[in-house]
């Protein structure tokens, strides 16, 4: 009986005939477009009534990609992680060429893609997402290779899988680099940043995705991803090699470079930029001298019979000197001051850039054979004419070393001091060449300016006050508001930590002097800095006036060049525009072809810009001298030929220039 019953049990399932099916009708999985396509090609006959409502994927579904081209920076990290190598980066030169972005976008081969979404999880910008679209048909195999945009098949589509904090595959947090604490550091000129240990440097290096967006943003195009990778692999030798390919001042740049690279770092889009600058410093700090010996001497060519004079030993001069010497030129650098380095030595305070770091870089430049003649001012100890005679080419990198004044009442007081008057003394004090008494710093000071130089002055003054009076009082005022200060954010934060008070968004009107003593600085609120055309033309609100107290005023509103050393005969042939000398892109002065310029007097505005100018000019000088030598060579051999002919057959007259 049981057996008979059980034979009929399957029939019980007939009831399901009357239930709603839980499976999805075949016809419902197609989009209209796909259905039409399949119908047209007689691949499948679909009931057109049913095919318009495709089943929607789950909210999280890993469907076809979308990529917002505005957000995407073309870093290619998605392509690197793809386990099926489905992504390649296609060049798109019509995209704007801007720092922090590469002119390429991911292209995906859907014949390979496995829809794992690792590309989404690692995308540096969140531009790459997946949509709910999961059906696509086409008879053309090439149509399965395309560049995702923010639409799919030309239509806005619903968002599917996106990354979240848990699935994110990047490390967005920077590894701390130990700093001296404000209370301790503000009474000394000890370097604030202590530098990474090996362990920390390697941890930080592990965050890099090797995209090279930084390389394009760096003025000298340092091989950043490569040296960071070498650090991560604990290959200091390799890292140092990479560094010296493009930058002979890495120890300095590893401390005080303006780091455009970090600003454009792909990781910075969503997190904290890789500490590229500190990593570079780590390489230099940890490379032993004997390692340098091989690496920097290896590429240096033997001296050839051509000489170049360099005026000024700032980053531009040293950059040019280094690469010219590497190419084989004999190089003499003339420096007015007693130590080489320019602003590095006499401007930037030691708590940011100690002498030891500068020495290390410059000693290696000297070591490859660059001859630096200090205490030699061109225009006083040797003339430009002399240089023109003695050398095959001359490079000028004399910088903006003079203070720039401010034209307001009271500014002629002797306690109104320019930044580049004050900072060199601070450095000399730090070196022990001046005593505290030799430097005039009042108990209450005001600094005018909102850039890095103003902060260097303010924070140096703080230190001197602490040493002199045991307390500090520094007020900083700028036209710009606190949130738009031109200074780097770190300067602002650290300055505030050290007790600098801010009076930003105000313009100085008068140095208030009574009985020959400065009482303070009169400020008006600044309404706007630039006019409609973008020219510098600040407007003030007189009603909003205040006087901030201080017995000494520092002016840090920019520096100026000093061209006294250039004789009139040359000056006549060059044009100077807003303090800068006009020259070709690689620094050659048009009407004085043996003269090249670089650094602040050409472009500025920072150290690495100087190095870059130096590097570019070195190549241009080489090209210029090579061309000259070729001409020379040709005329020399022509002469020799004539001699030979004359000797062997004196009866022949040699035709010249085709004429008899």
């Amino acid at each position, binding site marked *: 009986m049981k057996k008979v019953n059980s*034979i009929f049990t399957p029939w019980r399932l007939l009831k399901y005939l009357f239930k709603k099916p839980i499976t999805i009708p075949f016809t419902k999985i197609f989009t209209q477009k796909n259905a039409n396509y399949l119908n047209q090609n007689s691949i499948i006959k679909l009931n057109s009534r049913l095919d318009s409502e495709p089943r929607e*994927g789950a909210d999280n579904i890993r469907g076809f990609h979308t990529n917002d081209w505005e957000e995407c920076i073309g870093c290619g990290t998605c392509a690197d992680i793809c386990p099926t190598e489905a992504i390649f980066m296609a060049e798109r030169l019509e995209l704007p060429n801007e720092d922090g972005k590469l002119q390429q976008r991911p292209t995906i081969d859907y014949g390979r893609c496995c829809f794992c979404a690792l590309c989404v999880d690692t995308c540096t910008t969140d531009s790459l997402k997946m949509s709910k679209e999961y059906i696509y048909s086409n008879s053309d195999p090439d149509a399965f290779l395309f560049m995702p945009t923010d639409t799919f098949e030309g239509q806005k589509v619903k968002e599917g899988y996106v990354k979240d904090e848990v699935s994110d595959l990047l490390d967005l947090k920077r590894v701390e680099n130990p700093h001296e604490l404000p209370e301790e550091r503000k009474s000394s000129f000890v370097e604030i940043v202590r530098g990474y240990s090996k362990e920390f440097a390697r941890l930080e290096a592990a965050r890099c995705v090797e995209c090279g967006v930084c390389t394009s943003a760096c003025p000298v195009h340092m091989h950043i991803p490569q040296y960071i990778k070498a650090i991560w692999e604990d290959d200091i030798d390799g890292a140092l090699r990479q560094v010296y390919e493009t930058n002979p001042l890495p120890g300095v740049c590893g401390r005080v470079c303006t780091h455009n690279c970090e600003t454009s770092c792909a990781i910075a889009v969503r997190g904290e930029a890789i500490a590229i600058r500190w990593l570079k410093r780590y390489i230099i700090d940890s490379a032993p001298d004997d390692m340098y010996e091989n690496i920097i001497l290896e590429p240096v060519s033997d001296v050839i019979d051509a000489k170049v004079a360099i005026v000024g030993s700032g980053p531009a001069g040293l950059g040019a000197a280094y690469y010219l010497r590497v190419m084989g030129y004999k190089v003499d650098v003339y420096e007015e001051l007693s130590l080489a380095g320019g602003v590095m030595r006499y401007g930037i305070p030691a708590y940011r850039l100690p002498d030891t770091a500068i020495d290390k870089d410059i000693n290696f430049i000297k070591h490859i054979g660059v001859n630096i003649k200090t205490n030699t001012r061109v225009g006083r100890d040797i003339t430009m004419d002399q240089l023109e005679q003695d050398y095959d080419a001359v490079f000028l990198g004399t910088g903006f070393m003079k203070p720039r004044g401010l034209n307001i009442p009271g500014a002629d007081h002797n306690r109104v001091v320019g930044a580049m008057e004050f900072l060199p003394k601070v450095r000399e004090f730090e070196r022990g060449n001046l005593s505290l008494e030799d430097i005039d710093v009042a108990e209450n000071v005001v600094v005018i300016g909102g850039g890095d130089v103003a902060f260097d002055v303010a924070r140096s003054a703080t230190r001197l006050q602490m040493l002199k009076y045991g307390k500090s009082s520094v007020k900083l005022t700028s036209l710009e508001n606190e949130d738009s200060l031109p200074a780097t954010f770190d300067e602002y934060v650290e300055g505030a930590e050290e007790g600098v008070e801010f009076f930003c968004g105000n313009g100085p009107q008068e140095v208030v002097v009574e009985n020959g003593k400065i009482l303070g600085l009169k400020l008006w609120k600044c309404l706007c800095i630039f006019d409609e055309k973008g020219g510098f033309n600040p407007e003030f609100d007189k009603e909003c006036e205040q006087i901030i107290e201080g017995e000494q005023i520092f002016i840090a509103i920019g520096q100026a060049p000093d061209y006294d050393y250039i004789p009139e005969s040359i000056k006549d042939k060059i044009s100077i525009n807003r303090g800068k000398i006009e020259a070709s892109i690689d620094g050659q002065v048009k009407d004085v072809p043996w003269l090249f310029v670089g650094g602040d007097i050409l472009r500025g505005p920072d150290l690495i810009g100087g190095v870059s100018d130096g590097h570019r000019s070195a190549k241009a000088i080489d090209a210029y001298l090579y061309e000259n030598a070729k001409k020379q060579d040709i005329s020399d051999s022509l002469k020799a030929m004539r001699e030979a002919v004359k000797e062997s057959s004196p009866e022949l007259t040699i035709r010249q220039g085709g004429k008899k």
Partner: protein
Amino acid sequence: MRQMKLFLGPQHPGMHGNASVHIYAEGDIIKRSYLLPGMLHRGFEKGMERHTWMNNIGLIPRVCVVEPDINEMAFAMGVEMLANIEVPERAHYLRMVILELARISIHLMSYGGLGGPTGLYTLMYHAHADRNRILNIFEKITGHRVYHMYIVPGGVRKDFPVGIENDIHEFLNDLESRYTEYRDLGIENPTVLARIKDNIMLPESVVWELGVTGVGMRSAVNKPYDLRKVKPYARYSEVEFDVPVYDYSDARNRVDIKLNELVQSIGIIRQCLEKMPTGPVRAKVGNGQSMRWTVPKGQVYSCVESSRGEFGYYIVSDGGTHPYRVGVRGASYPQGLLGIEKYMPGTRIDDAPLWIDTMGVCSPEIDR
């Protein structure tokens, strides 16, 4: 008698995946048989050496198409052991839910697999429809229906989406309510029983000889050897469940164990959903961005209980960003490759698909 060569290939309704069996038969009795695993999943182990610890998750689930999660789990556990990573508590439970859902889905598939060879397609349709509902749940949780790439070294890739518990409960309740019906349709159905009872035997001696594990072993040796019990991973030690066994392994008993296990899995999932704490679901595996994660030097064997038995990953790390070597112990290797060659002969031709279905054979894990 004249020998006839037959090709039981991927197109056959009773065949699993892209595998095929070359059969030499006399009359309707198989005299010789060889498995051709398909060669579609060759070189996976080698491929793993060329992928980083993280982006290997694009490749690893593919070692078993129908139950990919065991690969992810064994790999993840191995990496975690090498790198000494503490997986967050919640992740353990999430992983168990996924693994047990996968177990149900593959047991259903295998049960439905009886349909093709026995002509009872209703069973196959029903089982597949129910498996499909599990795939819907997987799609919601992981973003994909088949290759989930969800269990990753350190935990899981993302937390469960809000409200998914309801979907899971609803499905489990429904499946449970239809359990008797399912049995009646297949294993209690005299027509099917006639094909599977006292047929396609797996004697204990063969279990030991070939190294069969899982359902095959448990049905033959009457011992509850299940890694979830004997070497608990995730939080299997925190949930209650039975390990069904038999001392007589015919096709019917093996199927019966699978159905019983399905009930046990329902219970485990319910306990997990109840017990799972809130909190993080993923621990960091390495430092920096994922392509620079390194795993300390060493070697490890990690294994999980798959629907077909012990499924293991032997992983060697040289301390770099990629595995130095990965070896996979596919649970169906013994019976699938060796068993078919040595013990399928003697079976009737029409029982060959039942042989493959009830012994548990998954070709990629032989191929890999």
